[in-house]
C-alpha cells in the first residue's frame, strides 16, 4: 500500500548551507494493509525524517514514496487534503500537540471544519464518541477538558481517536510510547494492535526494541540513515545478523536476563562466513554514499530477511562478537 522506493534525504547544513548531510540513504520498504512495521534506530538515524517525508512535512531528495501506486511528491492542493484523509501522524510529546489555551477536543472540531462540514451536529458527536470509545476512553471523562486536565496517555489516545475519524490507511506513530509511564504505555500499544486488525497500516517509529518486537510484523533497522537489516520480526530478532543489530539486541535491558547472559545466548548469524554477506553476494558494490540506481542495497540471506553492508559498522568502538 505505502511503498518507499530508494528514498534519500539530504539536508544542507553549515552557515550558508554550503555543506550537505545525508540523513536518509536509499531506504526502501513497504507498509501493507493490516501490518505494523517498526522502524528502529538510535537518535540521529533518520527514523523521524522518514516519518516526516511520508507525512509530506519535508521534501524527498531522491527516490519516491507511493501510496496505492500514486507518487505522493506530486500531490498538491485538494489532492493533498484527501491524502491527509488517508495518512496521519501522531508524535512523541502529546502535550505539545495541543494548544494549551483551547480545550483538548478542539482537535476534533478542526477535523470537522476541514473534512465534515455537511455532517449534522448530533451525528458528529456520535462519531466522536465512538472514536473516543474505540481508544478505550470514556467520552464523559475526557471531552470538554483542557489539555492540562488530562494525562499523557489520555492525550495520546485522543490524538489517535482524532486520526480514526478519518478514513485512515496509514498511521505514522513516531515514538508515541516514549513519554508515557510503564503502567499506561502497554494500553496504547495494545490499541495500535487493535487498529492493525481493522486493516490499518502502521509505521511504528521507536528506539525501543522490545516495544517494536512486541507489536510488529516487520522490522526495519536503521543506522546513520541506511537500512542495515530488515525483514519479518521473528527473523530479524531471532537471527540478528548485522553487527549493529546484534549490538542493539544484546544491549536491550531485560527483566529476567543479565546482559552477559543475553550476549552468550544470542543465536549465531546465519551467514556464518565471518565476512560481509552483502559483499559476498555483490563483490563489486561500493561502500559509501548513495548507491547507483542499478545497484542493490540489501541482500536476502533467508526468505524475508535482508541485510545490508557491514562496512557501515567500521566506526563503532564496541562490537559484539
Amino acid at each position, binding site marked *: 500500500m505505502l511503498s518507499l522506493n530508494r528514498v534519500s534525504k539530504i539536508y544542507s547544513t553549515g552557515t550558508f548551507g554550503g555543506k550537505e548531510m545525508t540523513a536518509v540513504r536509499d531506504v526502501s520498504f513497504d507498509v501493507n494493509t493490516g501490518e505494523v512495521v517498526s522502524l528502529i534506530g538510535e537518535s540521529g538515524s533518520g527514523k523521524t525524517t522518514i516519518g516526516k517525508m511520508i507525512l509530506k512535512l519535508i521534501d524527498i531528495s531522491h527516490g519516491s514514496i507511493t501510496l496505492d501506486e500514486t507518487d505522493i511528491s506530486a500531490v498538491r492542493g485538494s489532492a493533498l487534503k484527501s491524502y491527509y484523509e488517508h495518512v496521519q501522524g501522531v508524535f512523541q510529546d502529546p502535550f505539545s500537540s495541543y494548544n494549551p489555551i483551547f480545550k483538548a477536543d478542539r482537535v476534533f472540531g478542526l477535523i470537522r471544519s476541514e473534512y465534515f462540514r455537511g455532517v449534522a451536529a448530533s451525528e458528529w458527536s456520535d462519531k466522536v464518541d465512538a472514536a473516543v470509545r474505540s481508544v478505550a476512553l470514556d467520552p464523559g471523562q475526557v471531552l470538554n477538558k483542557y489539555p492540562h486536565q488530562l*494525562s499523557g496517555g489520555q492525550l495520546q489516545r485522543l490524538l489517535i481517536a482524532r486520526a480514526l475519524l478519518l478514513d485512515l490507511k496509514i498511521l505514522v506513530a513516531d515514538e508515541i510510547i516514549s513519554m508515557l509511564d510503564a503502567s499506561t504505555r502497554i494500553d496504547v500499544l495494545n490499541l495500535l494492535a487493535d487498529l492493525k486488525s481493522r486493516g490499518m497500516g502502521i509505521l511504528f517509529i521507536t*528506539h525501543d526494541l522490545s516495544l517494536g*518486537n512486541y507489536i510488529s510484523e516487520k522490522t526495519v533497522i536503521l543506522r546513520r540513515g541506511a537500512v542495515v537489516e530488515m525483514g519479518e520480526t521473528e527473523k530479524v530478532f531471532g537471527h540478528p545478523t548485522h553487527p549493529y543489530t546484534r549490538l542493539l539486541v544484546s544491549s536491550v535491558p531485560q527483566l529476567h536476563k543479565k546482559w552477559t547472559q543475553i550476549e552468550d545466548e544470542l543465536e549465531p548469524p546465519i551467514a556464518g562466513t565471518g565476512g560481509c554477506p552483502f559483499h559476498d553476494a555483490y563483490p563489486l558494490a561500493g561502500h559509501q554514499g548513495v548507491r547507483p540506481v542499478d545497484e542493490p542495497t540489501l541482500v536476502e540471506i533467508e526468505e524475508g530477511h535482508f541485510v545490508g553492508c557491514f562496512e557501515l559498522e567500521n566506526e563503532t568502538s564496541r562490537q559484539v562478537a
Partner: protein
Amino acid sequence: MSLQVSDLRVYYRTLAGDVKALDGATFSIADKEIMGLAGESGCGKSTLGNSLIRLDGRMKYIAGSVTLDDNVMPIWDKTGMNQFRFRDVSVIPQYAMSAMNPTCKIGKMTEELLESRGENFREIKPEFLRRIDLVGLQRDVLTRYPMELSGGMKQRMVMVISTLLNPSLLIADEITSALDVSTQRAVAETLVSFRDHGFVKSMMVITHDMSILYQIADSILVMYAGKLAEKAPTSVVIERPLHPYTRMLVSSLPEVGVRYADKKLTGIPGSPPSLLNPPTGCRFRARCPLAFAKCAEEPPFVEVDTDHAVACWKATGTDA
C-alpha cells in the same frame, strides 16, 4: 550502614495547598549497595533524590531525619548542607546533558568547581585523567566545550566530575532515559564500575525503567504516590514481588521475545491519585484488584522477610 533515612516528609508549596510528594519514607542503603528507586512519574522518586542533596525553593522540609555515615545531614539547612554536597553526597542530575557550563571549557570548569570547594585541582588532576580514561573518553575533552561532545559523552563526563571527591552516596536521577540502548548499557555499566572501583560507596539510581535496574541494582525500592510500596533485593522484586503495584508494574513491561500475538500484556487501569489531597488509607486502593475493607487504613511499611519490606495488608498477612 551508609545511608539511613527515617520518616522523611517533603512537601511542595503551591497556591492550592501542600502537595505531599514525599510522605514518610523510611529506608536505608548499605555500604557498596546500589539501590534502584522506581515508580511512575509523579510518584515522588525525584523528590526523594533531590531532598537528600538540595531542597529547591518550592520544596518544604516537614519532618524526618537523614543520617549518612553516622553524621546527621541538615537537609533543611541550605548553607549547612554545603559541607556535605559533592564531598559526601553527590548527584548526577536528570539532564546531565545540560548540567555543564556551556561557555566554559570542561577542564577550566572542573578546576573552578574544585577550587570553589577548597580543593587543589593540580593534586587531583592525575586521578581525574585516569578516570576519564576509565570511562572511555579522550583526555582532550578537557580542552573542549560541552557542546562538542555527544549526549553519551557528556553523561559520562558529568559522572566523572560528580564522583571526583569519592562521595559516600551518589544520586543518579534518570541518567539513562534519554540515551539510546547501546549508550544506555555503557553508561549503566560505568555506574557499576564506579562502585566496584570504590569511587562511590553507595548509590541511589532513580529511574522508571525496571529492566535497567534489574541489570545493575542490588536492591529496588518501589514508590507509589509519595509512599514507599516495596523494598527488596532485585531478584525478589522482579521474581517474587508482594505488593500488587509492583506485581502489575513488572508484568506490564514488554520484553524482547514477548509478542502481542502470543501474549497480550495489560496495563494498570486508572491513574495515580492527586497528591494535593491524597486519599486516606492505602493510596493504591482505587487501582488495586485485591483491595478490601482493611485497605481504608494505611498499611505500615514493614519488613516481612530479611531485607524485604512492603506496605500492603495482603502481603503482611493481616487479612487472615
